[in-house]
């Protein structure tokens, strides 16, 4: 049966949330296929202690292949994954998304002459094989992608795969010695910084407070920032208010912005047009505050409040602070 190999990105002693999502998804699929999910990690040995690698077992990985090499660069990982797949015969390579995942996935596809599908939002098992689902035409339809080649490469959309702890066993850590291709060592990591210059990465935030035109004016975001601060979350915005110059583009959610799936998404003064919905519908809990009871957002929110957000949001901030303080 075809085993699944996942690349797990680490930084500063922890695995990236999307990578853990990919490992969790890979394990779920492998179980359905009757095979195993394995992970590849690449980096400085000191940054990849045994316990850290073995902890991927909690997300269902059985084996972890550790390769000593430069961190955070694509080509060395392509070398590592091509070698592991060549030796172990994995049927699929899975990535959690993000620019690095896209780059590695593309490189690996070219190296192995594999089949690839990117921006995948869901994967399912059909007749003992994996089928990727990819939204197309601005998310208005979903296409099913089947793999014909020997190896199928699946690159998820950011936040597509949920992190789930499914195992309590440690993964078996195996060191793989590898001569990198000469071209793989030509790029050097100069510095690692926050994505796209955003203060807070809204894609990783557990709590998002999002504002729309219902705020009335740019200053309305101050109250949202206070609330986000109380929660320890981040502030997001709709296209309309970014257009109006009320908030920065890096915080834009929706069809032409970012796709997010926090634990709590609080929509303040957002009507909830489909173009916005596609960017946040994966959120676990959606709370909407809007003065228009007919706003579409209420059709897909878990809790809807019809009222004046200028009064409700500050009260909510106080309540959250009180709760956290006490």
């Amino acid at each position, binding site marked *: 049966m075809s085993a699944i190999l996942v690349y797990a990105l680490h930084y500063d002693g922890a695995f990236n949330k999307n990578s853990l999502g990919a490992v969790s998804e890979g394990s779920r699929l492998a179980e359905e296929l009757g095979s195993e999910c394995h992970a590849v990690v690449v980096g400085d040995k000191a940054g990849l202690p045994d316990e850290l690698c073995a902890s991927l077992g909690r997300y269902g990985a059985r084996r972890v292949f550790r390769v000593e090499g430069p961190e955070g660069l694509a080509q060395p990982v392509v070398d590592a994954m091509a070698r592991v797949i060549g030796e172990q015969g994995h049927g699929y390579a899975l990535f959690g998304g993000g620019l690095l995942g896209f780059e590695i996935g593309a490189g690996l596809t070219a190296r192995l002459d594999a089949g690839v599908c990117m921006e995948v939002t869901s994967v399912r098992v059909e007749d003992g094989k994996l089928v990727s689902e990819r939204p197309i035409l*601005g998310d*208005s339809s979903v296409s099913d992608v089947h793999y014909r080649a020997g190896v199928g490469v699946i690159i998820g959309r950011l936040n597509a795969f949920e992190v789930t702890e499914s195992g309590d066993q440690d993964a078996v850590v195996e060191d793989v010695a590898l001569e990198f291709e000469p071209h793989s060592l030509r790029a050097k990591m100069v510095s690692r910084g926050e994505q796209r210059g955003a203060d807070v990465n809204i894609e990783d935030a557990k709590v998002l407070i999002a504002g729309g035109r219902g705020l009335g004016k740019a200053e309305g975001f101050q109250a949202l920032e206070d609330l986000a601060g109380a929660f320890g979350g981040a502030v997001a915005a709709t*296209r309309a208010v970014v257009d109006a110059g009320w908030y920065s583009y890096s915080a834009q959610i929706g069809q*032409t912005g970012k796709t997010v799936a926090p634990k709590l998404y609080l929509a303040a003064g957002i009507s909830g047009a*489909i*173009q916005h919905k596609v960017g946040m519908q994966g959120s676990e809990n959606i709370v909407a505050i809007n003065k228009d009871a007919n706003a579409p957002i209420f059709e897909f929110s878990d809790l809807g409040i019809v009222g004046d957000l200028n009064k409700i949001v500050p009260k909510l901030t106080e309540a959250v602070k009180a709760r956290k303080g006490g």
Partner: protein
Amino acid sequence: MAVAPIEFPPPVDAAAEFIGPPTDAEDERIEVGVAIVGGGQAGMACAIRLLQLLEDDPELAESLGEVPVAVIEKGRVAGAHQLSGGVMNPTPLRQLFADDDSWPHFGEVGRETVYFMLNRKRALPLKPTPPPFRNHGNFVVSVAELNRWLGERAEEAGAYVLSETVGAKLLVEDGERSGDEASGRGRIVGVRTGDKGRDKDGGRKSNFEPGADVVARATVLAEGCWGHLTGAALKRLGLAAKDPQVWALGVKEVWEVEQPLDRVIHTLGWPLRPQSKFKEFGGSWIYPMNRAGETPRVSIGFVVGLDHADARLSVHDVLQEFKLHPLVRRILTGGKRVAWGAKAIPEGGYWAMPRLHAPGMVICGDGGGMVNVPKLKGIHYAIRSGMLAAETLYSSLKAGSTDFSSYERAVHQSEIGKDLYESRNMKQPFGRGLIVGGAITNAMVVTKGRLPGGHWPTHRDSDQPLLLTDRDKRYPKPDGKYTFDKLSSVFTTGNATRDDAPSHIRIQQRVPRELAEAWKWMCPAAVYEVPEDAPQGSEHVDLLVNPSNCVQCGAITAKGGRLTPPEGGDGPVYQVT
């Protein structure tokens, strides 16, 4: 005082901004033989016909260089911006493909019925079917689909289809140097493609790519209904006709239905209002799209002339209202909407047809006003004009000339000129209301345009003074299942216009409320919004503009603004419209 959109013209001087000499250094220009702007039916037919002729003439083909024929298409793929009601006269297409009948269609028109919709409950079938509505021998097609097929044929024949590329500026060489007959207005020598990767203020983003001068021995403008370069060329080169061009706006949906529809349906009347002060001229179509092995579908749409007076007339919402009629419900109930789109239609007819050539250039299809309004046909004229243009270009280029005036004669001698002359006055009488206008037009049809004869002039759509009524109270509240709002409709087009790009829509700001509302209601894609806190009464209003919703239908150009192409690849990706 009633306000007309024309009093608030867009801040743009098309003749100056969109036409000019090449600016790239000579060795950086892209040289092609023939540059065709627009990969619609006209542009693709022109490319295919030209390559057919060049195939038998390798000498001329070689003299046109490495790229004898290039098609510049702004959509993501050929067909992405194509939308039509969808009944086509197949004659020119069959002549273009004498031994290939594999073009995609939904069968020949069988039965057909025209209804006069008396009110929201009752409909009166008009029998016998009025002559302009007879469609025997015609085929139901999806131009979005047909165009993909035409694009493949053109590429097989050797055309370079540059999709996601905008024809932004017409390149002209000044008059003295060209020495051509058409006075000192200059010779067209190609087009400049649009820049990519500019930010909102026009600055360069990190992925900025400048456009390029594409120089050509001949340039074909086949831009469709709202021709960006065509509009500029008409002004700068003095090609405009006696009458201004006028447009209608069509909004269309495609539905999967439970029962295949067994006929072609057209309607007149409700929900449009018959009183002449509203100037609501238009009607609907419902066409079957049945194909073996596929879920049956129907194409349904509503068209209204853009010279209507009521600022709160919204063709999108009129279509939603129209769907509530029991006649329509019977067809759609149990079905599912699978596509939506909108497009303007040039309705000026014969008197509004511009001169179709200038030195180095020809105009084809909708951009040349080649639509037969009473018969609701234009696809076959687009194909015919593209073929005729190819034939003229071929013989002129062979003779080493860039005088393409024989194309104009060929168009006027073909069915295009003949049909359009017959129907030359047929739309204008409807300015007098549906009943009187209908009677006058019937007389014209019966006498093939000889009675009452003469020249019935047309006024610009933007000349029409605006009224504010409570028209909007009649529109149904969208339920998201059977009736739809504008935003979710735009979503189904796959529109993904980059929203940190410069706005491609030029309108005046600080306009009277009537005009602001007219743009808001007119636009099927919710591009214009009147802010909630905008002043009421006589104070002027600033609109909120959402260019990234735009499906490039062209209505704003008719009604007092100016559409320009956004970045190449932006806009809808129509599949079955």
